[in-house]
């Protein structure tokens, strides 16, 4: 079957890609556009490492056919990272030892971004609920929870 052209807004810019039927957003990001912050973990919807924001909502790019989000706004970790330095959530992860192998970090950071966009001062339980779909095998989560709370403080005082 012929490939199709899909356009969508990625990190503030319109992009156009040619894809085979049912190509996932994850494959488009990583293989077509070479934006590899979005990880490929389980490809089962179980690990959260491929999380991106679609119209501000966290979604799993490994389960999302790119044709489904034609014309919509996608934000990946590349989209929130400034040209110089780090986003306050990234800096909070760094300062709170919330990154070890780093594989879960892009998904964790995007989910925490979506949470803080809605709720600038979440409780620890609200952070736990938000990251329940993201697996980290290194940190034991405690440093990630501290980083999320620290990021909330930084963003509020910014």
């Amino acid at each position, binding site marked *: 079957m012929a490939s199709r052209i899909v356009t969508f807004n990625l990190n503030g810019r319109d992009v156009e890609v040619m894809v085979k039927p049912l190509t996932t957003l994850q494959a488009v990001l990583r293989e077509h556009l070479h934006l590899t912050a979005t990880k490929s973990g389980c490809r089962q919807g179980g690990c959260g490492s491929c999380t991106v924001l679609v119209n501000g909502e966290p979604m799993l790019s490994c*389960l999302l056919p790119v*044709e489904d989000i034609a014309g919509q706004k996608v934000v990946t970790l590349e989209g929130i990272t400034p040209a110089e330095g780090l986003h306050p959530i990234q800096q909070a992860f760094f300062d709170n030892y919330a990154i070890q192998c780093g594989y879960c970090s892009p998904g964790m950071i995007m989910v925490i971004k979506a949470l803080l966009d809605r709720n600038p001062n979440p409780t620890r339980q609200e952070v736990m609920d938000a990251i329940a779909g993201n697996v980290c095998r290194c940190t034991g989560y405690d440093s990630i929870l501290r980083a999320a709370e620290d990021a909330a403080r930084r963003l509020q005082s910014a």
Partner: protein
Amino acid sequence: MAIQDYFLPKSLEQALDLLTEHGPALLVMAGGTIAMPLINDGISMPEKVMGLRHAGLNAVRRENGTLVVGATTTLTQLAQQADIPMLQEAVRHIGGWQIRNMGTVGGNLFAPPPAGDLAVALLALDATVTLASKQRGRRTIPLAEFFTGFMTTALAPDELVAELHIPLPRGKTSYIKYARKHANTPAIVTVAAHVVTEGNKVADARLALNAVGPHPIRVRRAEQLLLGSPLNADSIALAAKEAAAECEPFTDAIATDWYRRRMTEVFVRRALERIAE
């Protein structure tokens, strides 16, 4: 065999046309949270896939004391738009945030146990499901009749789930999902209960269970035991014991059938105790 075509119909009518044209060779999905993992792993290798995300079925409306929920309403949308606490509680216990943003109310009906924890709440609320076919039009059946076996339903090959009708609860409800973790986890047993009492006696009771049968089930013998009695420690203990006898638990990586049956008795009792409080 690579996927030959992916269809994204813009309406239910277009979706039914495509289903009629391509027949059972067409894999139907909505949020993709069940179908895409199987496709990514090569377990499912469909030639043609239809996605329902843009088929205009994601709306919630009120109609004479009934909540009408379109089949592709996401679980997040349901929790935001349905003011039925048991539904919100059920949604909170399904997947993580991302899965709730993608997974749909209609799609959840096809999640094999121990997944599918929304249907157990819908069964306790006595929901009906409307199925649509191009040739035969629409039919509405009780959700309890929709489930026919493990991964089998009353859905005909030319039909799609169009919407669910959920009566607003008349009585008290409770919902408990017992699992090994607090969130994003398969159930050991999930209990949803709806009890109407009149003059201190149970006038109507619905008890639904998930993860202890081939599909989400009503335990009708246990329900019957409650009718006409006050909801007290004695009647609750009898119903809980009957529910444990009536369910058909299975063994998987989460729990053994023996453990699931024991926990069914415990958590049916706790669910009813919450209503009796």
